[in-house]
């Protein structure tokens, strides 16, 4: 008995030690900003929009951080765009309008943009927002010390040719770029302005946890992998937001998102799979809102020499083959069946209406494809196969991507191009290969486009050795005109050049042109909100319906 008692005591000690270990480990991580742990929406009662002016939006992935200069995903930019203001703003229709800045001027040579801020702006900590803060925002993003790699530092400043920024007056800030760029204003509109005093005083780590914004909504709380809560900041007068609070939930599984929407627990969901549209529309709680997106989905023909030892890699170096394959894929049917959307096939890499209206999209004509392949010197062999080719894609990135890729593989195989589809993990396998231009020889990808500029859409292929020229397409006609484009500042001249270039693209296609990806949102019937074409969620204009 004695012996047993001692052992019991030991067990209790071990148990306490284990619990202490768990508690001890968990305790120091408590974020000191969120003193209250507020429960998220109560699942039992359906959150009809009248009961609270909280709008709940469910996205697929969580934020990685709250650093305004480090935008890594669309999910982040959606949240940031409500927390931070930008100098100018791109509207739904693709117009670029004043936002934090009320006006801007461009220097004669097009390399200096001077913005005049609205008066009386402040950041969320009460600090006045002046030209100094704008300049600081740009300099901080560009500072290699900070090592930012997201959208602002990794794409915008680079594409902009950012050189410097300077203060020209209390409300006047000037952004200096290396050379004239027709897309400068739009790019600058992607930079989230934040205040100097706060961001200078905190470390990068703290800044990424405790943001101080400059836009219509103020940061409240971020519970990782769960939700981000914002509240309306009443002192922001440039926009008139309706909802008092925005809750950005993370729900990775599509069925769960849809179930929550139909149950009335969330108001807006992103990325609704096409086969769930009926379920949502038939419910009396929500409707699917689809928009023709701007993301250009295509099959790239990687023309690098590394594929020369494969039949397919060699074949697609022939422009005639690349044209022939355009006829092999029935894009409208793919849209209708797999994407639940009537789409017009893309005729170029530029989003309508900025594209060349004279170019007819390639029709689906498998006989034409076969005839052209025969003529190009790739007849069907005894086994019916012209050549084998590998077609790679990442998984789960785009709307119904796996099905689309398999369907394209089938269409190509049907015209005698024996296509071996490989589905890779998106971030660990596909992206690294894509970046090193090792992917393919056929690969499926979609690159973000714009509603406001043809040149922005074409910037993927701005130089023959460019990082985003994944196919290493080398058409000299195209690239020589690119130089001319940066010298042409009048709109008509630009338009003429763009149309010429798109025709070159059409006749020597580096891409198998597909479609502009539609975006599907599920919207509660209690909310009046219209999605935008550019994948950006802007719920500032959203209103409850009573």
């Amino acid at each position: 008995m004695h012996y047993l008692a001692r052992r019991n005591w030991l067990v209790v000690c071990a148990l306490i030690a284990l619990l202490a270990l768990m508690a001890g480990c968990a305790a120091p991580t408590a974020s000191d900003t969120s003193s209250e742990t507020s429960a998220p929406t109560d699942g039992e009662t359906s959150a009809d929009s009248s009961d609270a002016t909280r709008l709940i939006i469910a996205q697929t992935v969580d934020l990685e951080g709250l650093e305004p200069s480090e935008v890594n995903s669309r999910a982040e930019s959606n949240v940031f765009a409500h927390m931070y203001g930008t100098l100018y703003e791109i509207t739904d229709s693709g117009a670029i309008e004043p936002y934090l800045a009320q006006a801007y001027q461009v220097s004669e040579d097009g390399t200096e943009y001077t913005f005049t801020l609205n008066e009386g702006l402040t950041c969320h900590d009460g600090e006045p927002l002046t030209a100094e803060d704008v300049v600081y925002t740009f300099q901080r993003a560009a500072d290699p010390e900070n090592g930012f790699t997201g959208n602002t530092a990794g794409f915008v400043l680079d594409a902009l040719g950012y050189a410097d920024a300077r203060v020209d007056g209390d409300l006047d800030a000037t952004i200096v770029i290396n050379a004239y760029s027709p897309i400068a204003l739009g790019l600058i509109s992607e930079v989230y302005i934040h205040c100097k005093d706060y961001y200078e005083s905190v470390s990068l780590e703290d800044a990424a946890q405790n943001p101080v914004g400059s836009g219509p909504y103020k940061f409240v709380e971020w519970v990782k992998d769960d939700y981000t809560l914002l509240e309306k900041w009443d002192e922001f007068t440039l926009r008139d937001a309706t909802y008092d609070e925005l809750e950005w939930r993370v729900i990775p599984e599509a069925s769960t998102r849809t179930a929550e929407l139909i149950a009335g627990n969330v108001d807006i969901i992103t990325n609704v799979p096409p086969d769930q549209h009926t379920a949502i529309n038939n419910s009396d709680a929500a409707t699917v809102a689809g928009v023709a997106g701007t993301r250009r989905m295509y099959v790239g023909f990687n023309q690098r020499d590394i594929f020369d030892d494969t039949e397919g890699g060699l074949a697609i170096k022939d422009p005639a083959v690349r044209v022939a394959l355009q006829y092999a894929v029935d894009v409208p049917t793919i849209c209708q069946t797999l994407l639940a959307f009537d789409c017009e096939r893309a005729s170029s890499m530029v989003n309508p209406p900025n594209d060349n209206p004279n170019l007819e999209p390639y029709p689906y004509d498998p006989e034409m494809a076969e005839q052209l392949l025969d003529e190009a010197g790739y007849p069907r062999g005894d086994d019916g196969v012209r050549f084998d080719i590998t077609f790679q894609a990442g998984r789960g990135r785009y709307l119904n991507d796996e099905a689309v890729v398999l369907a394209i593989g089938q269409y190509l195989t049907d015209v005698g191009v024996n296509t071996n589809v490989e589905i890779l993990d998106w971030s660990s396998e596909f992206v690294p290969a894509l970046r090193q231009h090792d992917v393919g020889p056929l690969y499926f990808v979609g690159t973000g486009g714009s509603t406001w500029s043809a040149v922005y859409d074409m910037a993927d292929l701005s130089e023959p050795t460019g990082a985003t020229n994944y196919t290493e397409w080398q058409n000299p006609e195209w690239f020589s005109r690119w130089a001319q484009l940066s010298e042409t500042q009048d709109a008509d001249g630009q338009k003429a050049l763009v149309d010429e270039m798109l025709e070159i693209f059409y006749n020597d296609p580096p891409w198998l042109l597909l479609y502009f990806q539609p975006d599907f949102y599920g919207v509660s019937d209690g909310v009046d909100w219209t999605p935008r074409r550019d994948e950006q969620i802007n719920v500032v204009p959203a209103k409850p319906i009573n």
Partner: protein
Amino acid sequence: MANSASLSTTDDAVYVTDREIRLSPPWWRKAARSLAAAKWPILAIVILLSLMLLAVFAEPLAPADPNRQNLIRRLQPPLTQNEDGGMEYWLGSDGLGRDVLSRLIYGARISILVGVMAVVVGGILGTFLGVIAGYAGGRTDDIIMRIADIQLAFPFILLAIMVLVVLGAGVLNLVLVLGVGQWVTYARIARGETIAQKQKDFVDSARSIGVGHRRLVLRTIMPNILAPIIVIASFNVASVILSEASLSFLGLGVPPTIPTWGGMLAESRDQLLGGYWWLAVFPGVAIMLTVLSLNILGDWMRDFLDPRLRGR
């Protein structure tokens, strides 16, 4: 089974081995009473045999090419006829217009292959290491059992994900991962049994008359450990099939051009809400039938094959 379970098959079986086998009275007789019919194991065997026949003769049996798509005819319900009045889709078509029945038949091939092969890999590896550990004892035993501890302490799903992400998903890699994930179970049985046998007199006498180590192991020890290992293996085939489904859900199953039951189930998950029940029900039923049959068979075999239990 929950994928939790399926993904750590080791734990499941360890426990089954260490305790249940030795302690439980014959299931067969109880089954005869409790399920009111002794036909269950026979039914299980019939089901498993027919599934195997399906797998082997998939080509002649399947009505269509399992990968042949027809976008226009996607998501057709079961018993859809074509224009001539013939049966186009017995069990409906999937999101790409592929024939569900044909995919099920071909899927049997890969699902069963993966299940059986993974168990064979794990069984051979585990038995081998277990016998060595038990027979050699000392330092060798220590090292092998420490490796087993490491494996047990490592959350299996993380190991599986890591290895599959690194090596890439494919049938062979899947078999290796799921196989290696179970060796500890077999090693523990083999080790314990080897130690028990080693202490018996006839082993000593065999050795004293010059019987070699290899012969000793093969002739005296192996026959004694085979029975529990076969029993565990039958349970494990079931859990491996479920693991495959869970890995497919995480995008780590076999490539989408190779139909498997787990893969079909995982593909159908976005369509469950749309009322396309046949996409989930048929592969689900196939998995359940197989797992159920294997479990029934395993229970029965535990009783019949393990000599220690027969007399009880």
